[in-house]
């Protein structure tokens, strides 16, 4: 040979190392980040952060977001968005609150609330899958509609006080008594239980049913899924209906927790739900949303808010840090994907 390029054995082993690290980062970077955050707060606040009572608290604090994020995951599996979940939650709360104020039975009010959620989801689904408006535009439109409806039905006022039955407000505060740990009374909050139920149902639907598998196929390649025998339109419609119902459940949980119904009280849920799903997506090699990963995202948001408050960090700084951590997680995952 007239030329003999230099040996590259060193480079090989070095690259091999990089590849292994990159995969580790990609798959578990967000989980590692979560553990680091938890470890950090435990170190800073050994007495009040890492105890059963606080963790039970955190699960209750993220319970409402958890429901919305779980059902949002279903829509995002399809590569779609549902921007209307926040105002939907507000509107359902107002509907239920108004019915309660007017003396309807609790069951009727909650049932009709859920029905309103399903109906709103159906509207989103029809707009997106049958009329073929992009999900972003369609749900942005219904977001505004639901907001207007909530304000209109309520006349802009907050429904509170005797209008909300104590059964409902006690539910939002109560739980199942578990025992005494470290001298503290521990109860498993009802709201947490609802979220666990929703989580399990969504997990079964997405990971263990024909329906879920087909949703992932649509999200991966809509045309191939259609030609491969998937009823794309019907399934997309159903995903939005489920998302609407998730928002409705969250809206009712909010009424229970706040013991009041305000026409804008659920509006903030949408952005945080989407952020949680994105945080979870960083854990998937294919960038697919999975509901358990979404829950990790929800927990990250919840633990950050809880821990930073305990550390008495100023609110504005809290927001900067939370946003920064989301951006950091997604950046790391996309860098390691290269």
């Amino acid at each position: 040979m007239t030329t003999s390029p230099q040996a590259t054995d060193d480079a090989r082993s070095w690259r091999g190392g990089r590849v292994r690290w990159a995969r580790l980062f990609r798959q578990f970077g967000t989980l590692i980040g979560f553990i680091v955050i938890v470890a950090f707060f435990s170190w800073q606040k050994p007495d009040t952060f890492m105890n059963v009572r606080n963790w039970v608290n955190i699960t209750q604090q993220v319970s409402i977001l958890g429901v919305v994020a779980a059902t949002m995951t279903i829509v995002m599996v399809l590569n779609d968005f549902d921007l209307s979940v926040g105002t939907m939650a507000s509107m359902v709360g107002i509907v239920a609150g108004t019915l309660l104020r007017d003396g309807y039975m609790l069951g009727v009010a909650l049932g009709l609330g859920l029905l309103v959620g399903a109906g709103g989801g159906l509207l989103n689904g029809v707009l997106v899958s049958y009329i073929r408006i992009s999900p972003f535009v369609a749900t942005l439109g219904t977001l505004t509609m639901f907001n207007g409806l909530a304000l209109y039905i309520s006349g802009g006022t907050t429904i509170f006080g005797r209008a909300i039955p104590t059964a409902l407000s006690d539910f939002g505060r109560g739980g199942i008594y578990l025992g005494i740990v470290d001298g503290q009374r521990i109860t498993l909050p009802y709201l947490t239980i609802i979220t666990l139920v929703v989580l399990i149902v969504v997990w079964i639907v997405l990971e263990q049913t024909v329906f879920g598998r087909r949703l992932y196929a649509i999200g991966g390649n809509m045309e191939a899924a259609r030609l491969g025998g998937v009823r794309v339109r019907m399934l997309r419609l159903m995903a939005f209906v489920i998302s609407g119902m998730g928002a409705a459940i969250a809206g009712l949980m909010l009424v229970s927790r706040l013991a009041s119904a305000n026409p804008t009280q659920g509006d903030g849920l949408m952005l945080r739900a989407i952020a949680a799903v994105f945080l979870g997506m960083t854990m998937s090699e294919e960038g697919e949303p999975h509901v358990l990963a979404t829950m990790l995202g929800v927990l990250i948001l919840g633990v950050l808010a809880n821990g930073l408050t305990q550390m008495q960090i100023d609110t504005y700084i809290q927001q900067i840090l939370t946003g920064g951590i989301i951006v950091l997680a997604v950046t790391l995952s996309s860098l390691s994907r290269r």
Partner: protein
Amino acid sequence: MKRTMYLTLVIALVLAGFAASAVSAQDGDAPSVVVMTPWLAQPGTQLMVDAFTEYAAEKGWDVQVIDTAEDISALISRMEDVALQDVDAIVINVDPTQISAGLAAVAEAGIPVFGMDSGTDPLLVANVTSNGYAMAAETATYVVDRLNGEGSVVMFIFEPYPPVQKRGIIAEAIFNNTPDITIVDKITPSFDAGPLEGARNAMEAVLLANPDPGSIDAVWAAWDEPALGALQAIQAAGREEEGIVIVGIDATPQARDAISMGGSFEATVAQDFPGIARQVADLVEAYLGGEEIVQSTYYVPTKLITAANALDE
């Protein structure tokens, strides 16, 4: 690889930042007080919180301010978190009926809660506020007097928020009790682009519907932002010379500025926000000192602001 190292460094710095600010927030045995509100972006809340922080510093307390950006559910969560902390008192600026779950958690932890322009609730030690009925009466009677009891008035109201809602009730009663005053329109401004913009758009529509000079004599607004919006609409329509009297409530800096120019915007009422904050701080101090607080609501006097005293502070 290099990038990963940079990013690791960034994380390390961020965490170090947490630690540093946490250490600085925990010095000594000084009483620690947490101020909690979803409304920190509101000018009035801001004034009170700033003043309270100042008085607290004079008294040597540690103060932490928690704002949840209009999210009341999050405020309850943060109250639950604070309940786990070694905190001596909590000051809230929010309607207590909406956060009863949070108040319950805090009460269980035995932490006293004080309302700062909040509302009355059995779980509060006391609430310090201005008398909303009195403020509305003051501006409404100002309008009646300026019009010599005769003319048409546009009202800007907001019913969802009880402290503002009660102002509208009083003003309406006073106008209705004056035989020759007519209420042309009662408007709830849209908040989509802020109440100022919403009020301006609404006022423009009213002006178009009442084109004759003198067909509108006064604008009564339940707080300053719609008053400013109405002022802008009147200026834009070129109807400044008609002498339409505008009044607001709260005396924000912008409102004071507008009033000092001597135009249509003639009067507003200043809640004494620093006064409220001082009263709260004094109450907290008294309570921590072991005094018993019996009164559930404290009213701090308000002051009518006109061109004469708009720029005093």
